């Protein structure tokens, strides 16, 4: 497929929520201090691991959205709340019908359905307030965000596992470039749940201690939760730009990455080509860097194949855990922080680094001017996304 002809997309506002906190200030402090948000898992499902739980008060949904109230929906509501003023301005500037909502999630309402099913097994009936359509489906949180944001344009969820949170950026870029809408609210969310903890444990892909991306000792992921939202507009006062997005497939294996990172490499090259940038213009890479044996080596090889001299690389999974369907959105926000705040967080828990990973990892907070940052996300199904974020 030819690379879509799109324009750089202004990001006029964004918000982030994860194990480091619910405000920009809290998250930036943690990143600057190299402080992880991962903590030992307590309680179900009884696995020895660390998780990145969101530990801030989440808003209640308004009464008319009561039947949609889940942890996922309330996390989404917390993010919409942070964008209240930019959204008001966008609704005034563009008609609400010309503002799309394109979001990502991997597990949607699995957490709520798990609790409901446990009650079903114990008592033979679902909880009286359980509603599959309003609490489980991928469209449920979409309805909540559309209602709370006042955006009435086309709306959908993307669910491509761990690339779910970054693909909406590409969709919005195409929709706006094609003249189908004028603005879009994009992002992704996921909650912790037993399904993913037990599933990744079954795949032997969960570390017992906080995940150690790129380390010789790495033994898998730590799962996290959270989300991020960004408001993108046809034009406007940009905080950062989405300059290019590459979207490819490995066509190799349903859950394992291609060993040489073939699809990852293609995605990075496409993002650069779409943006009209050379590899040597990229100042930083926020790697997918999950901490699994396979991913980190494959990604390092792919980065080496694209970049003759790779820029500083960080995995932020050691701070937040792997937030799955939210990861692409959260790490887009981290990439924007690098540009706006002028610092790169260290890739924590990487020591001792695997000698097979020949990358210039960020080992201590690094300050400077960063104008182009590449953010990678890779997923089950062999789905790969690479987003080039640029300074305005």
């Amino acid at each position, binding site marked *: 497929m030819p690379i*879509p002809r799109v324009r750089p997309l202004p990001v006029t506002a964004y918000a982030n929520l994860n194990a480091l906190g619910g405000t920009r200030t809290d998250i930036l402090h943690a990143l600057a201090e190299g402080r992880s948000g991962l903590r030992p898992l307590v309680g179900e499902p009884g696995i020895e691991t660390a998780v990145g739980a969101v530990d801030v008060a989440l808003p209640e949904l308004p009464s008319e959205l009561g039947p949609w109230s889940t942890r996922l929906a309330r996390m989404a509501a917390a993010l919409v709340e942070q964008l209240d003023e930019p959204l008001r301005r966008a609704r005034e500037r563009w008609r609400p019908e010309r503002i799309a909502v394109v979001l990502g999630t991997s597990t949607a309402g699995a957490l709520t359905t798990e609790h409901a099913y446990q009650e079903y097994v114990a008592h033979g009936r679902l909880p009286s307030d359980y509603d599959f359509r309003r609490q489980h489906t991928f469209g449920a949180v979409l309805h909540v965000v559309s209602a709370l944001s006042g955006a*009435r344009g086309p709306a*959908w969820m993307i669910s491509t*596992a761990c690339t779910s949170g970054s693909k909406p950026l590409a969709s919005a870029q*195409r929709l706006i470039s094609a003249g189908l809408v004028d603005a879009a609210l994009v992002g992704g969310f996921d909650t912790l749940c*037993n399904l993913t903890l037990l599933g990744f444990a*079954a795949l032997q892909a969960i570390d017992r201690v906080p995940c150690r991306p790129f380390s010789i000792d790495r033994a898998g992921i730590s799962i996290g939760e959270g989300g991020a939202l960004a408001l993108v507009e046809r034009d406007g006062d940009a905080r950062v730009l989405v300059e290019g997005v590459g979207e490819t497939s490995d066509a190799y294996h349903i859950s394992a990455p291609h060993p040489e990172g073939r699809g990852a490499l293609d995605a990075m090259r496409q993002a650069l080509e779409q943006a009209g940038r050379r590899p040597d213009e990229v100042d930083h890479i926020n790697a997918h860097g999950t901490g699994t044996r396979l991913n980190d080596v494959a990604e390092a090889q792919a980065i080496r194949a694209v970049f003759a001299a790779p820029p500083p690389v960080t995995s932020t999974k050691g701070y937040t855990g792997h937030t799955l369907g939210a990861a692409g959105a959260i790490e887009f926000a981290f990439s924007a922080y690098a540009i706006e705040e002028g610092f790169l967080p260290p890739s924590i828990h990487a020591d001792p680094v695997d000698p097979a990973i020949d990358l210039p990892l960020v080992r201590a907070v690094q300050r400077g001017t960063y104008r182009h940052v590449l953010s990678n996300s890779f997923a089950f199904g062999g789905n790969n996304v690479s987003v080039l974020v640029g300074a305005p």
Partner: protein
Amino acid sequence: MNESPFVSLAGMGLWLPRTPSVGAWRDGTRDETALAPGGRTLDRTNRRRASQLGRALADACAEACASANVDAGRVPTIVGSSIAEASTLLSILDTTWRRKEPVSPAAFSVSVHNAASGILSISAGNRGFASSIAADADTPAAALIEAVGLVLTTDEPVLVACGDETAPAHLVDDSETWELLAAAVVLAPLAWDGPELAKLALRLEGRPDLPPAALPAALGRNPVAGLVDLIDAVARGRSGTVRLDRGTGRGHCAEIVCLVHGADARPSDGSDRR
């Protein structure tokens, strides 16, 4: 009214129990042996991995690609599904909470929404664009809008496949469940030199006042049945407005101008639907 530019509709595919092709649907012929989708274009490993939904999507995609004369190994592919692999999720929950057994890594790997999308990509060797989306009853409209965005920015054909498996027992009332179906279309730029069945534009603002077409109840409740309405209209050469949901969505519509079967002769009023 906010409407997309016209694009070409280049091919179509369909899999329903006993109606395993667009031709069978149009002609009203029933194949009593077609009770489960074969997933015949999937390689053996992925056919084994695929759910009923994944196989039905594969069959619908194969028919659509063949009729549009596009290569499944290269065409960008968008899969739409409201609940996707919910039956696999339910099976994992049952394993965990009722049978108290370990989760199967194989089952977990195909519990994600994009399992079918990944299986299609791996089987076809397609290393290009693949996405998997959901929007409840608006899933067909959303998938088509995403596809039109791709067509307009790449000038290449795009495969859209929508399907939903029967809603999981235990989690929904019997009156809310539906039959398995999968439907697929290939959209292409107007300047495309391949087959062309119709021209299509999408209304980006809903028309909830427009009634949905009449489909049998268990089929009509399927969240992606709106794509069957579109295929039905094109297969019968009926130009006009087709609502892309079943009355419970936003009312997104497609305006179609049919180019085959003496199109434009009859309004798309749903009066002769099966």
